[in-house]
């Protein structure tokens, strides 16, 4: 068993989430969505608790967590940056925008800055293709981003 690091009240909340879905293994993905909303990510110990509550193996939960790109086992930065790598954004220069973010933050895709402020990831299409290339920081969507805009955007945070 992994060492328990998350606060006791969060563990309690996690069990409440599982109960809300009647501890039904068929609801595993919905449970994991809410768990990730609660904690920001899904570390091993969370998966163990969910497995116990839903009466499935930890391997099954781990299998599901790692299958879907929406779930993360690593904590994200305070301001998670996502660069849209959908086709529409790709042909309108998303790669150059990504390069600029990587250069300015000095991290790779999937990493978080040492101060925990920003994390960088790619996603496939937020559906705002009219604004391509698009990036999102938290809930906020930025459209028609050029590499020159990157500094200005980062300075907002």
């Amino acid at each position, binding site marked *: 068993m992994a060492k328990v690091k998350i606060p006791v009240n969060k563990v309690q909340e996690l069990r409440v989430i599982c109960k809300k879905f009647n501890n*039904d*293994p*068929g*609801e*595993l*993905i*919905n449970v*994991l*969505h809410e768990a990730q909303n609660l904690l920001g990510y899904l570390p091993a110990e969370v998966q163990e608790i969910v497995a116990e509550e839903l009466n499935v193996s930890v391997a*099954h939960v781990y*299998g*599901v967590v790692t*299958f*879907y*790109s*929406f*779930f993360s086992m690593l904590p994200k930065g305070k301001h998670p940056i996502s660069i849209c*790598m*959908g*086709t*529409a*954004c*790709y*042909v*309108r220069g998303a790669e*150059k925008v990504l*390069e600029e973010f990587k*250069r300015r933050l000095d991290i790779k895709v999937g990493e978080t800055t040492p101060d925990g402020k920003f994390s960088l990831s790619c*996603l*496939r*299409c*937020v*559906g*705002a*293709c*009219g*604004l*391509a290339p*698009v990036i999102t920081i938290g809930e906020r*969507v*930025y*459209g028609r981003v050029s590499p020159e805009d990157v500094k200005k955007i980062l300075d907002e945070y």
Partner: protein
Amino acid sequence: MAKFKYHVLVCGGTGCRASQSETIAANIKRAVAENNLANEVQVIKTGCFGFCEKGPVVKMVPDNTFYVQVTPGDADELVLEHLVKGRKVKRLLYVDPETHTAVSDSKHMDFYKKQLRIALRNCGFIDPENIEEYIARDGYSALGTVLEQYSPEKAIEVVKASGLRGRGGGGFPTGLKWELTRKSKAEQKFVVCNADEGDPGAFMDRSILEGDPHSVLEAMAICGYCIGADKGLIYIRAEYPLAIKRLKIAIEQARKYGFLGNDIFGSGFNFDVTIRYGAGAFVCGEETALIHSMEGKRGEPTVKPPFPAQCGYQGKPTNVNNVETFANIPVIFLKGADWFSNIGTPKSPGTKVFALAGKVNNVGLIEVPMGTTLREVIFDIGGGIKSGKKFKAVQTGGPSGGCLTEKHLDLPIDYETLVANGSMMGSGGMIVMDEDDCMVSVAKFYLDFTVEESCGKCSPCRIGNKRLHELLDKITLGQGEEADLSRLRNLATVIKDTALCGLGQTSPNPVLSTLDNFPEEYEAHVKEGKCPAGQCRALMQYVIDPNLCVGCTLCSRVCPVDAISGSKKTPHFINSMVCIKCGACMEKCKFGAISVQ
């Protein structure tokens, strides 16, 4: 209900919301109240108008004035001029790029002229969060008619007669699917709506769910009645928070009005809908994978047969249709199967929604009758290629589709024609590319996607696509050899023939179609070590033309690696050994002295 003289429709789709359309709506509301018009003017946040390129869009009804690229600061002027003084705000009208005149009514815009909106009939017209607006547009009357006047068999006959085919990409006849599920004997059956729109660059289903969620719920109930199911499930991507929110509101309202729940319309028919979330896996658009995902498992596909119609969700007969397919159903019952089958082509009746994106002037959501040509879509509706560049290719069908070229532009769009030409309908993504796009890189881009999204269950897809990607990578790095081209083709064909599910069987399409349509481009990469589009960095060399360079030093200052040398007012020089080919110097040069060779 209050009677309003004016309705101000503000686009509340994801694209326009990203450009502050919510603040625009709030500002207009405030300005309306300040001018004491609150009893006469209603401000409504609608679904997507489709013209995303010119968003945020605001439309005034009843005079249909269509304002484009509105900002929150324009709200006061719009209210004071248009609503109080009755004068149009000319500077916010759409300007026709050819005639340079302002067009105020959307039906006179080229973007809308050739469109026919069936699945999108309510998007941009109604408030998707208010069921009464849907009812006012004949909403739920198709469900009422079916429950009162049709037997399930007769209703299925109507769907069959309409000729409607699955809009998710496969094109399987919808009526036949319903009939097969009806014939499966079981105590419990399910209706599933596939809203896992995973194609990058496609946003048709999202816009329908955001703009007209009730049409999907109504169709699911009709489907439930036909096949004998009392439970419906919508499998939707977690990346679509707005669509999820509006669906939840719609389900609540439909329950309250008795369109979902027990004994609908007093007919004794029960039906209810719940939502299941995806978690970011492209393969879950495949129906067997989708069903496994809904059961809380890894979304891996299984071999068909058994088809979901016999053994689907929880082992019970399940009918899976895509969002757009469902959105067509209520209209078919209201206007008749004959009306529907007369639109489009004999083999592919009706319309198709496309998400037009990429290097085209009018990016947006469009709906055209089947049989419309690619040229009409890209040049008439889409307004041609951005920045006056030359059209090179159009990619349809997403990562499973292919690239079509100039010579395909006059082909009619329907299921068979696209497949015969090496692409496919797919769910409706349509990405336009221009002369600056390298087709080898585009094929690599799609393979990148497939490699990442392959579920790993079958080896042709898991290993084969990885090898395809490696070959393409090698070619774009300038290390390719001629034999690689036949290797690519062989491997692609094997994957196509042997992969387990739709994802693997179609994943080599981008490679095969670019090999077929752009052989010279592949050859230039492997034989001459050149990328004709100038996109493959490893094959590029930036040079300064000494005749054009005035020695302003701007390029050497912007170069991140100090690869540019030269003193003031004398021609500069790029050291290609140091140059990382970032292109920053070329963007900055005001004299056009830097070029790629």
